[in-house]
């Protein structure tokens, strides 16, 4: 009778035990207080400064997910050009929906796992894969295949932080709509942020690619929809969240009914990578026919706003495209 039940563990942590009579109560409490104080002090960490965008080169690789990802990175000089030994790296895939990979609304698990492995091979001190999922984290990670794909890489942590204390207030000095927001704290402490969006349609912003995907690092995204111009806010957020690299998973494209699907899915077997987040997204717009129509990158309002912020280029004609693979 209990077949097919969605059993899961919710209370995961063991409680450590202090043996009886080893401390008296007062010294125990004092010790706990000191630890708590140290812990609060440790939470103060200077924000890493944003890096300026570099020359616009895009790698466009064809093939199945893992090999296309490797080819794209090799075209850009290998992962070693971006991740140094001892770096701490945050990977940001789309994992918001408890749907299987075939729906095209989450980043392919193979792409995430491949990048995670490459980072570790490059000597990354730690790799954390994070998305503040819309759906139940356990279901999103299991049904998207992400948990299984990463389970064989023990050094990688997979997180959907749902405690406000794990986020840190960040000012957005150049923001026109977004003035401040809370961002997953570890992004601010890490040397590298690698954005791993999937390519999909989005009924409010046209497409959801790299820049839109960065909203998954934010604590309160409701305010983006409710209190401000969504497109402007996405571009504003990109002024403070500056990925080292954006690797767009175009192995599939969700062309209609995005971002959650189910909609029309096409196999593109393409991975696009680059340091210019606007150019990667611009190329992503040209990958397919959204709702049956060709659309130009400058028809996407949040990309226009990002260009106005000087975050990158939309003119693909001026971008060096390095094609690899079949």
């Amino acid at each position: 009778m209990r077949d097919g039940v969605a059993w899961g563990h919710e209370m995961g942590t063991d409680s450590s035990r202090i043996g009886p009579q080893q401390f008296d109560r007062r010294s125990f409490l004092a010790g706990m207080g000191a630890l708590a104080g140290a812990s609060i002090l440790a939470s103060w960490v200077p924000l890493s400064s944003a890096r300026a965008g570099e020359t616009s080169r895009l790698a466009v690789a064809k093939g199945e997910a893992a090999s296309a990802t490797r080819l794209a990175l090799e075209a850009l000089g290998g992962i070693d050009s971006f991740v140094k030994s001892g770096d701490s790296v945050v990977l940001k895939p789309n994992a918001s929906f408890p749907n299987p990979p075939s729906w095209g609304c989450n980043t392919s698990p193979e792409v995430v796992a491949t990048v995670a492995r490459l980072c570790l091979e490059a000597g990354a001190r730690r790799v954390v894969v994070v998305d503040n999922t819309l759906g139940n984290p356990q279901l999103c990670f299991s049904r998207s295949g992400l948990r299984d794909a990463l389970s064989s890489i023990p050094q990688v942590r997979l997180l959907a932080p749902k405690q406000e204390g794990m986020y840190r207030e960040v000012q957005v000095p150049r923001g026109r709509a977004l003035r401040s927001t809370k961002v997953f704290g570890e992004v601010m402490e890490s040397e590298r942020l690698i954005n791993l969006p999937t390519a999909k349609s989005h009924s409010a912003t046209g497409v959801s690619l790299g820049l839109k995907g960065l909203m998954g690092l934010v604590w309160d995204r409701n305010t983006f929809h409710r209190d401000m111009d969504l497109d402007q806010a996405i571009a504003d957020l990109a002024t403070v969240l500056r990925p080292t690299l954006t690797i767009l998973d175009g192995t599939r494209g969700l062309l209609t009914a995005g971002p959650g699907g189910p909609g029309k899915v096409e196999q593109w077997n393409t991975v696009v990578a680059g340091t210019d987040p606007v150019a990667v997204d611009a190329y992503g717009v040209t990958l397919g026919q959204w709702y049956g129509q060709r659309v130009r990158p400058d028809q996407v309002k949040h990309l226009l706003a990002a260009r106005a912020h000087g975050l990158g280029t939309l003119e693909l004609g001026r971008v060096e495209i390095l094609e690899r693979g079949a």
Partner: protein
Amino acid sequence: VNLRRSLQGLFLLLFFLLFFTSTTSFSRMLPPDLFLRSDPLAGMIVSVMAWSAITVFLPALVVVGSALLMGRAFCGYACPLGTLADLGARLARTPHEEPSWLRRRPGLPLLILLLVLASSLLGFSLLAWLDPLVLLSRTTALVLQPWLLEAGRAVLGIFRPLASRIEWFWLSDAELHTPRYWLEGLSVAWMGGILALSLWRSRLWCRAVCPLGSLLGVLGQRAVLARRVGDSCVECGACEKVCPMGAIGRDPRHTSRSRCLICGRCGEVCPGEAIGFLPMKTGPARAPNGGWIPLSRRALLAAGAGGLMAGLTVRVDAGRAAPRDRLIRPPGALPEPLFLDRCLRCGLCMSVCMSHTIQPSLWEAGLDGIWSPRLDLRLAPCEKHCNRCGQVCPTGAVRPLSLEERTHAKIGTAILLRERCLVWEQDKKCLVCDEICPYDAIEFREVEGMRRPFVTESRCNGCGYCEHKCPVQGQSAIVVARMGEIRLEKGSFVEEARARGFVFEGSREEGESAPPSQSREGELPPGFLRP
């Protein structure tokens, strides 16, 4: 080693163990509702209310058997609430003596039992308020579990920064999620009151109120194992002073079998070793049957009349008849009257609910619907890929369903309140209801130059993800009402849903693409600017 205390501790641990492992695979070995199913009072009441023998209560026959042989041994050795009362009494050094008002009314507990039985005959179950196992179960779900998790969460939050500094990620990444419930105050007050009674006088709840204990006492009137006092009794009265139940009368040879827990504390203090529990060679061949308190005819009538009035009261309460628009029951809940008859209000469904949307009702379902499960979809959604509530329900008030059946057990329909909607009212770019809908039941249509959301009723399952995630503060701009809910006593929800024209997934789940929705000639695809 004290046998009684060891057993008490063991059963208490088992109770909490079963509870806290109810969402793990451990529950396949030992069901989390084992204690509830061993409750003969619950079994009787639910069988009477549902007017059929409910077989899940078969384990209760063990407890009935124990009562026939050993009287209220269950209360003394196994009942987890009794154990908590004993623990409290020990810590608080609670006095044992009988309050005078109770001494004058020895028939009170029997009266309460009869009241519970009589009111159930008229369709009103008092189990939710008075059955110790139901009460402890629900209080564990609604109070103890949240307390523990909240405390753990707070401690984790304090140590998280340090842990991440020293790279103890197992600690810094650990998250505990506190379930939050309505009626916390009432839950705490009711159980607090019961335990407080037993802190004032030992086991006062068990002596004066508990209808389950009372039932076991009645069954144990001719038990083999019973307190017997031999000829060596010197009438010192030491036994009377230590009896936690006030079961020993002024004459220490006299034992109230309706009270005696067979705990043996009297025997431990007896200077003449005059007290035994097995039939003795010396002394009375059979224990004196001193416990039976014949109720006066007047008291019997009072119990009957009280039950009648209680039953009539819930029957005339408008809560039963008023169509409650927002009373959303768990998926697979039986049709409403049957559901209320079967539901124990034990809180197991609330405890295992993946999102903790299942909440106790107050007046939403009428007077007798209090504590019954309802969904608060603004607080949390009902997960499509979860069927735990039906799997743990001890009585089948929520039917155990496969995941496929469960996704077809529609619980309501979303209604868009345009005057609150950011898109309809303020022309904002919001699509949250659409992107989050697990059933693809929101569609956007061009109205007055902007794409605006509509609910496709035939696809809406009532899961409430839209209501939960709607970014409008306070009341959501899209709310789920009971409209269109599917409640089946038996048979397939899949077939019923299909017969009524609902589409909850079908083959798209397997990755088959939906038909491409081309945008029309000259019309922009959604979200894009004109070139």
